């Protein structure tokens, strides 16, 4: 009984901390419509900041506390809103989500950069050691303080949202931002305020929780998963229900942790109840959500497009990947080959996101888990390099994809993202870590006790011995997967997937079964990811659980969105960027910087939702792609430079610089040369059919000639568009 009371009190404390964090999450979500994945990371940074002030600089506890929770955190939240969130109006839910994921990863990188993770930083509880006697049990002051804050925050937010003008304005902004603005609310100011409060609550929860779980960046950041569950129980809107959710979660968490110690089997197979309880609660909370109605996204808001690749373009891309890989494989030093050979596995996992997230708009954060299943299958079936194992990897991953998709069918948008995130965390913290066990006389050892051995595939007597062989083989696999994705986009099926993203309601009323389409695309994409995992595993040869970490999965999604979720080039970029040792080699002290840099790039997404590949690279190359002679010229120059390197005329770095310069400058030169010709062409195609005055500005440029024809049809005097009009 005594123990029960202890667990109850500690459970209530955990619940209070979850409640504070979850209410902050719900507040920013209700007021701005952005689900802040980085909420936990913000709390983590705040906890580190508090440690720095309190123990690094020896400030008194109240001063440090006030400085972090009431000054720095709100300012940081407001700055985030002004600098980043404000630009996200009119982007898809995926983009919004990925921007907050970017912030999460940047903060993690920043935290690890500033506060070296190797150094232990004990954070003492408030009034360490002081207790009051309640029901015969000593109750530490720290727990009382947490409980007190939770109640104050709950009551305060309730009053703010329902009893104050600002609260009403906040709720109005969620329903319709522009309408609220017309009625005199300043939406920007409201969003800023809610981000400030949200950040402050994240900081408060971070500081309260860190003494109990040690000051560790990743652990603190992932604590947010528990908070999601509470927020989902409140359906991301309802504060009292969120509070109840936090209570359930906190108590369940501490009881299970307390009592599981008595059942060694549970400790062994439930992989630390800390993870499993919150995930299980999150799972049931998601199932309990009402079915999202078939609905299209209001079309005016979407700024994203996914053009159809031509057959020649897709083949050219695949060919360039293979040829480039073979050339590069001969100039990269052996020491770098190990990491470079991972390019294609990661690239294929990135490719798997294109049909699912890019085309069909189904946000999935568990692609890396499918890849992990591919690896496990390769380990068990691929003994001796049996190539059939690749097919098994695809097939089994696809089946798991179907199983994951089934409960997700009812969900969309942020809820789908959360359920797939829950699945990913479940896989990487629990399922992949289940130790060897024997059931009905059969021994199961899925992850080979934490160390997968993956044999490279043998094909037609070909054996991939070195990492270089694997690198080249991988490029073929990537090219194949890329062609497969391009074929999907070119097919009627691919069109239907995009249609599904644009409007489920319209799809259904035209005779398409939206559920079937979702299931099929989940299976397809999981299959591709499983294939990617099989290839990735082969280049790793032997691996533990680390490469399958949920956070790495998040960074693949993020790099993919930065490149453009509809673009094959983005997957190539993701593979090269995430596998490449270049940054680490050039700046060994700044490996954390890579995370921060990518994070910053992701943060820039608001301006550019189609990704930088389409906007900055394709747009320049489009001119050239239409001119075979120009393309030939580039190939010739690249081969010449490469031959110079092979024959030792160029040093490694000179080769890299020249080869990249040629690629960078070619479109510029080509555009300059071809400018006159294309301009001449444009004037020939200009004549305007008189019937299509309506289409001016759509099919024809809005120029003087168009104005003239408008004038003619309306019988007006002629005038020209000139700069002086605006003055």
């Amino acid at each position: 009984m005594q123990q029960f009371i202890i667990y109850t009190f500690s459970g209530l404390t955990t619940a209070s901390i979850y409640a504070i964090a979850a209410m902050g999450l719900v507040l920013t979500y209700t007021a701005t419509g952005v689900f802040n994945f980085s909420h936990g990371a913000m709390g983590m940074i705040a906890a580190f900041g508090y440690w720095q002030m309190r123990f690094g600089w020896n400030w008194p506890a109240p001063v440090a506390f006030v400085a972090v929770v009431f000054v720095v955190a709100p300012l940081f939240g407001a700055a985030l809103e002004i600098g980043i969130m404000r630009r996200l109006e009119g982007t898809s839910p995926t983009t919004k989500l990925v921007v907050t994921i970017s912030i999460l990863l940047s903060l993690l990188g920043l935290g690890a950069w500033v506060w070296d993770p190797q150094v232990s930083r004990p954070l003492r509880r408030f009034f360490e050691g002081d207790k009051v006697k309640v029901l015969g049990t000593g109750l530490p002051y720290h727990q009382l303080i947490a409980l007190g804050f939770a109640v104050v925050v709950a009551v305060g937010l309730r009053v703010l949202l329902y009893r104050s003008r600002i609260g009403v304005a906040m709720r109005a902004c969620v329903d319709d931002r522009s309408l609220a603005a017309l009625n005199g609310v300043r939406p920007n100011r409201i969003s800023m305020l809610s981000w400030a409060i949200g950040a402050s609550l994240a900081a408060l929860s971070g500081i309260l929780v860190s003494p109990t779980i040690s000051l560790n960046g990743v652990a603190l950041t992932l604590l947010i998963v528990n908070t999601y569950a509470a927020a989902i129980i409140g359906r991301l809107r309802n504060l009292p229900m969120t509070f109840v959710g936090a209570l359930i979660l906190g108590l369940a968490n501490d009881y299970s942790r307390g009592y599981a110690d008595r059942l060694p089997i549970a400790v062994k197979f439930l992989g630390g109840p800390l993870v499993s309880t919150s995930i299980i609660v999150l799972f049931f909370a998601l199932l309990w959500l009402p079915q999202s109605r078939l609905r299209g996204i209001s079309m005016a808001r979407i700024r994203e497009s996914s053009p159809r690749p031509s057959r020649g373009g897709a083949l050219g891309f695949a060919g360039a990947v293979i040829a480039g890989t073979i050339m590069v494989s001969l100039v990269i030093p052996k020491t770098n080959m190990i990491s470079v050979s991972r390019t294609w596995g990661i690239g294929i996992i990135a490719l798997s996101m294109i049909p699912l997230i890019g085309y069909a708009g189904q946000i999935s954060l568990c692609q890396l888990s499918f890849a992990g299943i591919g690896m496990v299958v390769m380990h068990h079936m691929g003994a001796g390099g049996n190539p059939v194992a690749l097919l098994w990897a695809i097939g089994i991953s696809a089946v798991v994809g179907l199983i994951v998709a089934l409960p997700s069918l009812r969900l969309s948008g942020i809820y789908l993202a959360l359920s797939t995130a829950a699945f990913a965390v479940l896989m990487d913290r629990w399922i992949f870590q289940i130790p060897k066990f024997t059931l009905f006389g059969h021994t199961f050892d899925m992850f080979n006790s934490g160390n997968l051995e993956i044999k490279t595939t043998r094909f037609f007597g070909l054996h991939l011995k070195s990492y270089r062989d694997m690198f080249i083989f991988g490029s073929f696999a990537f090219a194949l997967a890329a062609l497969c994705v391009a074929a999907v986009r070119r097919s009627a099926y691919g069109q239907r997937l995009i249609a599904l993203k644009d409007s489920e309601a319209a799809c259904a009323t035209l005779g398409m079964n939206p559920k079937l389409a979702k299931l099929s695309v989940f299976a397809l994409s999981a299959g591709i990811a499983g294939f990617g995992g099989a290839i990735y595993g082969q280049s790793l040869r032997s691996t533990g659980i680390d490469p399958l970490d949920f956070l790495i999965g998040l960074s693949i999604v993020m790099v993919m969105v930065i490149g453009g979720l509809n673009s094959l080039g983005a997957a190539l970029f993701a593979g090269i960027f995430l596998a490449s040792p270049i940054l680490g080699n050039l700046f060994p002290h700044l490996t954390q910087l890579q995370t921060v840099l990518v994070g910053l790039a992701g943060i820039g997404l608001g301006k550019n939702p189609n990704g930088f590949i389409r906007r900055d690279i394709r747009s320049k190359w489009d001119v050239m792609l239409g001119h075979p002679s120009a393309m030939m010229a580039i190939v010739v120059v690249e081969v010449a430079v490469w031959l110079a390197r092979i024959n030792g005329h160029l040093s490694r770095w000179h080769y890299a610089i020249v080869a990249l310069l040629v690629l960078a400058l070619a479109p510029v030169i080509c555009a300059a040369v071809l400018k006159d010709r294309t301009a001449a062409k444009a004037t020939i195609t200009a004549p305007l059919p008189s019937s299509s005055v309506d289409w001016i500005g759509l099919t024809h440029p809005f120029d003087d000639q168009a104005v003239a024809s408008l004038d003619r049809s309306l019988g007006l005097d002629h005038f020209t568009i000139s700069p002086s009009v605006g003055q």
Partner: protein
Amino acid sequence: MTLLEVREVAVRFGGLMALQGVSLDVAPGAVTGLIGPNGAGKTTLFNTITGLQPPSAGQVRFEGIDVSSMAPHKRARLGIARTFQRLELFASLTVRENIECALSMSAKYRTRTEPPRDATRRLMARVGLTDVAEVLAGSLPTGHGRVVELARALATEPKVILLDEPASGQDDAETEHFAELLHELANDGMAVLLVEHDMDLVMAVCDQIYVLDFGRILANGTGDEIRTNQAVLDAYLGSGFAA
């Protein structure tokens, strides 16, 4: 002979009865009008017929079969097509792809003899979209977006087509062209259910008109009967006006 029958349909949103005891018949080869003030429940009725909104009570029957609990895509495959008042275009696809897509989603895709490419071209020519075939649907003005939705619905070769304010956002010439198109569709034997606020258009093309007000059918009849119906005049103009 009626193709589509709505029988005593009710839809309740919490305490609000959006529809209450609504019954109507849509005959093939004719244009049936459905008019009523904003908020009368016209779009809700469309949602109920197409399966996006399950009714709280009542039945929707199509070709004599009760389809009330059938999924939207199954109803579409039986031959019910619609357009949306708030456009539901496939905004990131081109106009041509929008129509190709609709063709490939329809029940008749596999049995059709005409190649999809030709069918797309024919449909675009019929409604006048050939000039913008390669424009992204999301960048079209609303009026033209409605035409794309119409072409998309026609691509499924429906037996009944439900049009939700198809003429709003169109100018007089376009509306006239549209009226001709409606006549053609009805002459081909299709059943058309038209929601529209443009009374001239409604009176010109509809063979039968239903008036919906506060979720109830107020009256039905030919254009002339509706024009002189006292209950309708009261609803639209306030009581005290005589025809």
